[in-house]
């Protein structure tokens, strides 16, 4: 709660009357059961810096807010007074198609960014299944990726510049607008994935990718995770036009209309030149036949995977990261201890994500899933679960070896602990 009586007017002095959210809107900025006393929509980077400085002066805390699509990830905030949104910092700043780069403000949604770039036959290589209303800033803060990661990497791999306000209100630039640049420390890497605990991202520049001439979505039905993963790995080894790939267990596949009890569904997108995609599809068909797998061709783009990424209320979500070759074993183990879970894995990057409804409170499955995954040497992040559970266990798991260095980073960039306090690793 905001304690200082003068704070509302001070916020207003920075962002203007229209920049302060109405009281009845505040509930929509709730994080882990904590509702802020104010939500403000600054119109530019300077206002963000002013707000952060004010928070430092007044000893109040801030959680930066983009599209709000990933706010469930993290430990409960130890304190949360003000939400700072980027909804009014959302313009495209520059797109030079011939340079294959674009700069936009952090509040721009992925949907509008992709639409704008698409007109020039280009795209920002974000994951195809991220929600359209996720923002660029949120994406960078979480370094989110999915079924196309083996091909494009994560946002850290294609972000070349940023504007960033540190936790003590310093407005800084990282990187630049050129695709190759080793001048100074690579600050973008520190800010990307820092989940709003070091500062606020207000602008970013990306390397873009040309839109492929052809795409083809299909699914493969398999009786085992092993066969599904082997199929994906072989396609990849051959260098076929594999843009996106995920394995869904039967429960996850239910919503796709392609479900078959007891069967796993491998959702694949090929993309590239017309001839390349055609050949890739032919090889995939014969490989499926050789492996006695059923191939279901010609799906709508992303059809098989998309529904999995629509978040339901009252869900527990666990994200495990393992070695690619261990993906099937991990997927099986998770499925066994949490038979009611929807499980989706990306077999080329070793990410296994399980989710299930826990409307009435926690259940044993969460502990079992974490235990089994860690026993298989996976790193585990609990992306969402009932708040009571969140208060008891660190969502990011055991302390990483480099935690002391991370704490030093926090001290350097947010000395007043005003940003997303308590939310990240070791409740930093």
């Amino acid at each position, binding site marked *: 709660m905001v304690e200082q009586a003068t704070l509302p007017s001070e916020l207003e002095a920075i962002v203007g009357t229209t920049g302060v959210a109405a009281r009845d809107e505040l509930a929509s900025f709730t994080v882990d059961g904590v509702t802020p006393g104010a939500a403000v929509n600054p119109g530019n980077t300077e206002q963000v810096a002013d707000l952060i400085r004010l928070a430092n002066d007044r000893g109040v805390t801030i959680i930066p807010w983009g599209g709000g699509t990933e706010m469930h990830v993290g430990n409960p905030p130890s304190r949360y007074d003000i939400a700072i949104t980027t909804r009014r910092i959302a313009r495209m700043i520059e797109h030079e198609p011939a340079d294959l780069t674009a700069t936009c403000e952090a509040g721009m949604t992925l949907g509008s960014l992709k639409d704008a770039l698409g007109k020039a036959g280009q795209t920002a290589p974000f994951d195809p299944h991220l929600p359209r209303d996720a923002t660029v800033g949120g994406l960078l803060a979480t370094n989110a990726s999915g079924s196309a990661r083996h091909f494009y990497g994560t946002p850290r791999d294609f972000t070349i510049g940023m504007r960033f306000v540190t936790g003590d209100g310093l407005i800084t630039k990282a990187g630049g607008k050129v695709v190759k640049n080793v*001048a100074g420390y690579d600050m973008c890497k520190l800010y990307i994935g820092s989940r709003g605990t070091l500062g606020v991202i207000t602008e970013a520049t990306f390397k873009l990718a040309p839109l492929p001439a052809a795409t083809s979505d299909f699914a493969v039905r398999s009786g085992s995770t092993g066969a599904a993963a082997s199929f994906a790995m072989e396609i990849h080894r051959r260098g076929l036009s594999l843009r996106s790939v995920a394995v869904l267990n039967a429960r996850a596949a239910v919503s796709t209309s392609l479900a078959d009890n007891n069967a796993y569904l491998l959702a694949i997108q090929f993309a590239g030149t017309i001839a390349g995609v055609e050949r890739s599809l032919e090889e995939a068909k014969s490989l499926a036949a050789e492996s006695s797998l059923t191939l279901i061709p010609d799906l709508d783009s992303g059809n098989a995977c998309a529904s999995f990424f629509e978040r339901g209320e009252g869900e527990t979500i666990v994200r495990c990261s393992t070695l690619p070759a261990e993906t099937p074993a991990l997927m099986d183990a998770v499925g066994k201890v949490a038979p009611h879970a929807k499980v989706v894995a990306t077999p080329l990057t070793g990410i296994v994500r399980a989710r299930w409804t826990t409307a009435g409170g926690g259940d044993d499955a969460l502990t079992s899933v974490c235990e089994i995954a860690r026993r298989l040497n996976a790193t585990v992040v609990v992306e969402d679960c009932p708040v009571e559970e969140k208060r008891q266990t660190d969502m990011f798991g055991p302390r990483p070896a480099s935690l002391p260095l991370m704490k030093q980073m926090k001290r350097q960039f947010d000395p007043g602990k005003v940003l997303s306090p308590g939310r990240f*690793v070791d409740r930093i």
Partner: protein
Amino acid sequence: MHFRGKSRAVRLVVVAKAHIIRDLQSAIGREWVLHAPEDLLVYEYDATIERGLPEIVVVPDSAEQVAAAVRIARRHNLPVTARGAGTGLSGGAIPCDGGVVIVTSRMNRILEVDPENRIAVVEPGVINLDISRAVEPHGLYYAPDPSSQNVCTIGGNVAENSGGPHCLRYGMTTNHVVGLEIVTAEGEIVSLGGKTDTAGYDLTGIVVGSEGTLAIVTKAIVRLLYSAESTITLLAIFDEVDQASHAASAIIAGGVLPAALEMMDKNTMEAVEPFINAGYPPDAGAVLLIEVEGLEEDAREQSESVQAVCKELSAREIRIGLSPEDRERLWAGRKGALGALGRLTPSYYILDGVVPRTSLPEVLRGVYDACDRHGFRVANVFHAGDGNLHPNVMFDEREPGATDRVLKLGEEIMRLCVDAGGSITGEHGVGSEKRSYMSWIFSEDDMAAMQRLKLAFSAADGFNPGKVFPTSKGCGEVSSRMKAAIAKVGPNAYV
């Protein structure tokens, strides 16, 4: 402890030095601690003409020994500079303030190759190309390919975030390193990142490219890629430089992202031709060397698109290499370019700047103008696809005032890059040479944020002092440290 300042380096008094040497010897072994002046000389240089003599050189065999050496140096307030193969082009391995140089040549083991998961774990002294050689039987390779890849080490690559011709498509070192083991300035061994995703800040990404100022790398986990099914190399010959630089930009604008897209101008070709016999027409203005790869179908289609763009922009001839031998022949002139230039001129100044691809034609014109005005010949051979320029300015060091004039020219060219929206270094690093240009692209606040990393790593000036930032002390006086990038590279070098 007693120190005596002697011009730019801390010089140890004899007694203190004997102490330190004894400590280092007991930690690392007698034969791996060098301190006789004649033994130290080979460690005072890299591929630049900069010099900095270390007090002591140690050649540890393990992370524990590196950590021990760092702790001993810290105890005695001596700076530590890590050194790989010494092929850097910004003085990264030069111990500006003397102190201890840690050489990684004994830590050259490939610890693990995991073809199934496409990763390898290597020690810092492993030579870049040796990784690709080791994993080739599995159809894999390590993508970053700096020009010196048959001698340069992974530790050095990590420090400088090295690039190479193929980083156009595949990215720099930072895109291929997923984890590190480091020794901090406090002498602690810490693991960053790993084979799987780790929670928390991306400290690996910070250490990569920090030019040896934050930590010493003792292990790296690198990603491997499958080799492409098909690779096609094209050499497009143009009458005018302008046509070639327009074509470079147009190829990418047209939706093709080649694996490599390199350019050589007339002066470079003239230098190369007598030695390589590449068959460049004597009156051609520039050539583009373009490599496309992927599935056979993709490579063919990309090759056709590239040819169409080049013809459209008046390429007079396009040569195509399909077999490895033919492709190698097309690359020969590019790879031999710098060595050939070295035969034409007593000295040359290798510049490294980046501009947005679309600014290439304009900036290149500016580079030629500036060189004309200053009365120097320039040969441009560079990564056009990335907009990463390498003007090589030819001059004679022995001619009075020539060095100062060539440095002035270099500064002017860097200005052109920055004014076009670019950067002061694309792949060679800031080192001590370009520290004073940092303020052209970064504000005081930007650099203050960077300096916070040094504080967080408790590194201060303990590691590789005098690099990257304008505020720290550097090698010698301004004009002499600017000579850093004036290369004295041998016949096999190329940028």
